[in-house]
């Protein structure tokens, strides 16, 4: 019987952010590697260079989301990218574009992902790597009865096991067993 579970809102928000990160990586790779296929499907030939640039942006955002302790800023970056993507796609809705139906579908898809980015950014907002709260002062937690200077070396008399001792050749000159060295 379960009484309590550790996963919370932050866990779900992070999972969504990671999912968006992987989506960014996939989309970024597609835009970088096969831009011509995408522009043909959208009837927007001639914009392959721009798409490659967007692909680099997507890939970088995805990587940032996946490797960061705090993916919030990267998700906000994705949101800004979504706005640019939407603006670019709108230019493909003109009467002269025979594939404007595809453009409309792409717009709907990007709008959906934008909504997810918004939800994720909202859920992660204010989540620093440590969360809110004042810094604790532990300067009174010495753990020793006297100041460190007075405690320095009080355990020096404890026997260090032979197998954990530094070989003589690696010890400071003044602490070597010079007599033993002379017999070698």
């Amino acid at each position: 019987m379960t009484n309590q579970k550790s996963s919370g809102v932050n866990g779900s928000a992070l999972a969504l952010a990671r999912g968006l990160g992987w989506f960014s990586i996939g989309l970024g790779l597609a835009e970088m590697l096969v831009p011509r296929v995408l522009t043909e499907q959208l009837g927007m030939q001639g914009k392959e260079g721009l798409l490659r640039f967007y692909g680099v942006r997507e890939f970088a955002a995805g990587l940032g989301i996946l490797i960061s302790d705090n993916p919030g800023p990267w998700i906000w970056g994705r949101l800004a990218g979504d706005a640019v993507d939407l603006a670019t796609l709108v230019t493909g809705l003109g009467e002269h574009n025979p594939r404007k139906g595809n453009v409309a579908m792409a717009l709907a898809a990007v709008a959906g992902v934008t909504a997810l980015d918004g939800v994720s950014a909202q859920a992660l907002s204010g989540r620093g790597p440590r969360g809110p709260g004042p810094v604790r002062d532990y300067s009174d937690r010495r753990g020793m009865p006297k100041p460190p200077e007075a405690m320095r070396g009080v355990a020096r008399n404890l026997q260090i096991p032979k197998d954990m001792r530094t070989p003589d050749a690696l010890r400071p000159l003044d602490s070597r067993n010079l007599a033993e060295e002379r017999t070698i």
Partner: protein
Amino acid sequence: MRALCWHGKGDIRCDRVPDPQIEDPRDAIVKVTSTAICGSDLHLYNGFIPGMQSGDIMGHEFMGEVVEVGTGNKKLRLGDRVVVPFTIICGECEQCRRGNFSVCERTNRNRDLADKVFGHTTAGLFGYTHLTGGYPGGQAEYVRVPYADVAPVKVSKNGLSDEQVLFLSDIFPTGWQAAVQCDVEPSDTVAIWGAGPVGQFAIRSAVLLGAKQVIAIDRLPERLTMARAGGAITINFEEESVIERLNDLTGGKGPEKCIDAVGLEAHATATIDSMYDRAKQMLMLETDRPHVLREIFYVCRPAGTVSMPAVYGGLSDKIPLGAFMNKGLTLRTGQTHVNRWTDDLLRLIEEGQIDPSFVVTHQVKLEDGPAMYKTFRDKEDGCVKVVLKP
């Protein structure tokens, strides 16, 4: 009984599970009075250590009262107050007789699995991966302690509180062994990466062993204040260059002794190599993030010693073996041989030379453990060490 159980990445629950039973005449059952969450429990919580199964009971730092003893156990009696080391040892195999308790040849009941993964088996551990035996851990009301006539450390019922002796189970001997492995000389600078609980004990151990200078490296202000209280000069790696500062503090020569108390989940800094580690770990192309080890190999003084109590799980990439080899560094590592140190450390506590309870920042009931895992992982609320009371 109630116990904190692992159910997957980021998912620890307080479950009701069957009470443990005596399974071998050498066993004992301990009623847990205090248990703690260890930094290495977070590696399980974060899903970086393989070999966990849903329902595994967590925890390898615990102490309590003996409530049942096997017929063949001549060491313990009902009512004894004991601290139980996290390494399960037989006391009889060749490695145990040499004092290498953490590589006991007999106590890992999944020895075949460990042989395949590590080449040869190591000791069984409480509340850890099935690679180390999959023994139910101490974040519970009761624990079965195998080979209980060897490792448990008896402590007096009067005088010392649980919080003063509990950490003999792991983090105090671990910090101590980290410093002992450095064979500290009075002229030494000991640099310690990570001011978590093990780092804190390593700082105080290095001071007690007589290091000229102890330097702690971390980024969390509260941990740095605790490190300074223990006698360390501190470096916040988010605010200054670790390499430059260490060289400044050692006349340009680097520290003679370096301790890695961070391990496989090194914080991603602004350095290229740590970003590279995060990306590779995410893509499952390496298991560990060895940024600290790289920094240590680079900055350590030639002919110096590197002590590595930190936990690493599997495979690491881009280790600068060129620097390591050419500088003639010595690397000492391993899980802690707890029972090698407990007599001396208990004496230091009893004499009042050290009070390990300084490290406790949070104390909660067992059922609040799942939430504290998150608090500890995210380093919220100034959390350094959590003690749980079943």
